[in-house]
């Protein structure tokens, strides 16, 4: 591959991997079973799309991926782009990126919840996953092994079938580096996200692995999803353990090898975290459920909350194309949209030109139950409030007025 016999794309891919592996201390490569590419066009820009198109123009045998390769959410839902006031140039760029990925043999799953909907990895499986929420769930809940693989590196892994063996592909790296002792276990998804944010701030960087003790019930997949996504977002963390719950930490001693720093976290910490985001606003312009995309169960819960009510401000429920099809078939989409909501498919709010959407629609104050979304959108000019799903729905149905 390095000599170019497999074509210039695989040559670039292996050189890229060697460069990254050298920087991060990898001694060799590890074969990977799946790749997942984050490549919305807001991130790619014109330069990134043109870069992809150059590879897509190669002869077929030189351009096709070697392992199952799927995609993270795109930058739009074409069916709702006008409703979101996205510009034609954004859609053109998306179409070009999609065409390029299809030419490379990538499956356009457009989802960040592939572990709930496509093919969850199994314990010990080495993967090259993009989207931090996917990586942390796969590592922690499934016991798979992946680093954060940005779009170029996930594409490289897809082309070579391997990835540099550093970080969380190595067993010693997977030991805990700090312990978080919980005196209270969340129930609401927004509380799980807030807890993820708190632990993320305590951890502080990619190489930290928190181990949680005191979790009083086995969290659901959606609870793990919101906790992990926020932990990855606030802390850049890629792996956590929960004593007695996650597969590598059936006993806390399995992951805690030495005296580690310990931190206590309780309900008051979670309430203070939530309050921080409520401090500056008493009304909202838009409600968004996204980041991660909603599971079928979240869609069902939302539909039930909206039955017989009417949203007075825009309310968006963002899910995967796989869940959307089921939600359509089971009538959940119709129930959400009968209440004035809009179900978006295959995109994620913050990956879809959030700044431009805010300016075009006059959205500034936003309510969500996603701590991850709350963390990201400040930089895009929004004032986010982190609330429970129920409180978000109540605010939407009160014309945007936030309750006490």
């Amino acid at each position, binding site marked *: 591959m390095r000599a170019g016999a497999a074509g210039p794309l695989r040559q670039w891919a292996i050189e890229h991997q060697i*460069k990254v592996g050298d920087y991060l201390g990898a001694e060799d490569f590890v074969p990977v079973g799946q790749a997942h590419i984050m490549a919305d066009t807001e991130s790619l*820009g014109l330069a990134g799309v043109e870069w992809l198109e150059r590879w897509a123009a190669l002869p077929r045998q030189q351009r096709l991926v070697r392992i199952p390769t799927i995609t993270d959410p795109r930058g739009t839902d074409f069916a709702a782009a006008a409703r979101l006031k996205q510009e034609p140039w954004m859609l053109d760029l998306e179409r070009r990126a999609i065409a390029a990925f299809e030419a490379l043999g990538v499956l356009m799953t457009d989802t960040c919840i592939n572990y709930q909907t496509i093919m969850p990895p199994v314990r010990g499986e080495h993967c090259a996953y993009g989207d931090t929420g996917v990586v942390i769930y796969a590592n922690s809940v499934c016991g798979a092994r992946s680093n954060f693989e*940005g779009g170029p*590196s996930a594409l490289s892994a897809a082309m070579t079938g391997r990835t540099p063996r*550093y970080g969380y592909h190595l067993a010693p790296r997977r030991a805990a580096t700090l312990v978080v002792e919980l005196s209270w276990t969340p129930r609401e998804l927004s509380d799980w996200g807030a807890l993820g944010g708190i632990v993320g701030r305590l951890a502080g*960087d990619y190489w930290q692995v928190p181990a949680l003790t005191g979790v009083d019930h086995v969290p659901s997949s959606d609870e793990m999803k919101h906790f992990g996504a926020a932990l990855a977002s606030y802390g*850049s963390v890629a792996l956590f353990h929960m004593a007695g719950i996650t597969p590598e930490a059936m006993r806390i001693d399995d992951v805690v090898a030495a005296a580690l720093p310990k931190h206590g976290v309780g309900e008051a910490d979670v309430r203070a975290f939530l309050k921080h985001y409520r401090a500056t606003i008493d009304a909202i312009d838009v409600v968004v459920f996204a980041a991660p995309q909603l599971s079928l169960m979240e869609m069902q819960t939302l539909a039930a909350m909206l039955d017989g009510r009417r949203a007075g401000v825009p309310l968006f429920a963002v899910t995967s194309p796989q869940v959307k099809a089921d939600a359509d078939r089971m009538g959940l989409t119709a129930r959400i949209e009968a209440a004035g909501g809009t179900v978006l498919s295959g995109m994620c709010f*913050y990956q879809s030109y959030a700044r431009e959407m805010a300016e075009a629609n006059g959205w500034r104050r936003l309510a969500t139950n996603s701590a991850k979304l709350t963390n990201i959108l400040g930089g895009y000019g929004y004032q986010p409030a982190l609330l429970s799903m129920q409180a978000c729905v109540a605010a939407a149905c009160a014309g945007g007025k936030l309750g006490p």
Partner: protein
Amino acid sequence: MTAAIFYAAAAMGRKVQAPALVASDGFSARYDLDRVRGVFSRPEHKLAGASYRDRVLVLDAAKGGVATAWMLYEMQARGIVPAALVLNRVNPIMVQGAALADFTMISGFAIDITRAIPAGALVEVDPTAARPFIRVVDARYLSS
């Protein structure tokens, strides 16, 4: 003038010289930047409002999601990009992004690099040296 020089554990890219923008805070292209205007835009960031164009960013740790892996390349293509990144701690995304964009980055120091480099100093970053380093060329560059 000072001869202060700080060696890094890992490096990539080309030798650059530019004024330093320094903060004890993280870095994520998605979370922290308005990439059109070329400024830090997240209100909580210690460099909020500051232009990063052609500056050597001296920060604590790589943060946030995977988007930076593409965004450095896109920023480079438009010419609204920092001159280099100097970090106490990287994550893989920052390395992958720098590798794609052929961007200058060094990381891993014996001291907290954000406390060692004066804000506004003219610094030289040399990832090609046998021992990659950041060196203060003129500590009072932007204040003189």
